[in-house]
């Protein structure tokens, strides 16, 4: 069978709603697109632990601290599910980690913003994880089995992240005037990055056509973004907070919230490495890799010794 015929059959399989599994034939670009998306997603989970890790020792109560620890641990788990999903495509985890550390691989640019107040822990759970859930629920319907199954598992866990974040924001918003101001300030800083996090607008997205044809993504960036906006605006209202967008308005006819112009220049500036924390985040991962080296070596040496002992005993 020639490649064109195989690709045709592959497309028919995708169109009929069947999932693609690891060992099955797939077009080279399908594999490449997935490797790019899944590894970026995995790196985002891992780098995403850093802005929140910043507040673990300073959480305002034991309850908040336990919750934050559990949440950050979940992000590590999500990173690991995703690295294994990517590995099914034939790339090794070590290679992906090296690509992150060398700056070759990307991660979600939202994690290049600093977490300067406790309210940011609320804003991240509410907005960043809120946006992530909308995106990941869509990806869970995607065509690649291992990725879509990882998404299902992650979405279940994300809903706790989302709620605990909203709880923090809501309680601050209903607290003293100073606390409310903290919550509003966090919303002001995280709103637009969360909107941008769902990717370039459909007209600008260079990968969208192919990823949608192959049902790696089943909805466009703008569709997912609109869903996030429609869900989130009423949540801000319920907390008595104001979305930082003077042009925001409800369209009675379409029943959607319409936002003002998105500042894409800022988005691309941060992606290209010029956000407030890009260098800091990468350095933290490089340090962790170096400082963990002896642990990996010790584990390998111990396992080797155990194996040698077993051989001798046999």
């Amino acid at each position, binding site marked *: 069978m020639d490649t064109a015929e195989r690709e045709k059959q592959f497309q028919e399989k995708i169109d009929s709603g069947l999932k693609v*599994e690891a*060992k*099955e*034939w797939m077009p080279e670009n399908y594999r490449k697109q997935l490797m790019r998306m899944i590894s970026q997603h995995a790196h985002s989970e891992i780098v995403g632990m850093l802005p929140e890790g910043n507040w673990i020792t300073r959480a305002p109560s034991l309850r908040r601290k336990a919750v934050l620890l*559990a949440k950050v*641990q*979940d992000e590590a*788990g999500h990173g*690991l*599910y995703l690295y*294994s999903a990517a*590995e099914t495509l034939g790339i*090794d*985890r*070590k290679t992906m980690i090296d690509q992150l550390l060398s700056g070759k691989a990307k991660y979600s640019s939202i994690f290049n913003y600093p977490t300067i107040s406790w309210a940011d822990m609320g804003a991240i759970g509410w907005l960043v994880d809120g946006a992530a859930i909308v995106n990941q629920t869509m990806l869970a319907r995607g065509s690649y089995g291992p990725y879509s199954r*990882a998404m299902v*598992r992650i979405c279940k*866990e994300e809903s706790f992240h989302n709620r605990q974040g909203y709880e923090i924001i809501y309680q601050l918003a209903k607290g003293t005037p100073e606390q409310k101001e903290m919550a509003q300030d966090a919303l002001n800083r995280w709103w637009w990055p969360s909107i941008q996090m769902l990717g370039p607008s459909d007209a600008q997205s260079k990968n969208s056509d192919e990823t949608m044809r192959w049902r790696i993504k089943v909805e466009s960036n703008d569709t997912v973004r609109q869903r996030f906006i429609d869900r989130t605006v009423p949540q801000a209202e319920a907390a008595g907070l104001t979305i930082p967008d003077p042009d925001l308005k409800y369209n009675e006819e379409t029943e959607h919230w319409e936002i003002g112009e998105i500042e894409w220049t800022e988005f691309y500036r941060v992606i290209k490495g010029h956000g407030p924390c890009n260098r800091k985040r990468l350095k933290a991962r490089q340090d962790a890799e170096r400082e963990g*080296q002896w642990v*990996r*070596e010790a*584990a*390998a*040496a*111990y*396992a*080797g*010794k*155990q194996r*040698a002992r077993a051989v001798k005993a046999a």
Partner: protein
Amino acid sequence: MTEKPENDQGQLWEVFIQAKPGIAHKHAGSVHAHDAEMALASARDVYTRRREGTSIWVVPSNMIAATTEQDADSFFDPADDKAYRHPTFYTVPEGVKYL
């Protein structure tokens, strides 16, 4: 005895979790580990943070043999023409019960 640096992620293990006593273990995902003990501890932390399991199996991924997509049709076709293996293949007279 130190393994080479390219092995410093350990080998890949497939993780199977039994959600409740009495039911089958089901594939949950995979972990990297240097030995079975580490694979079990890692599988617990990665896949059962919310009491998802009562038992875990870990199996080195390279020990799993699997059928391939290309051979699936011919491999499974012996079952294609044996509808008589299903109870619905048989006609039961009207009014006869418990069959």
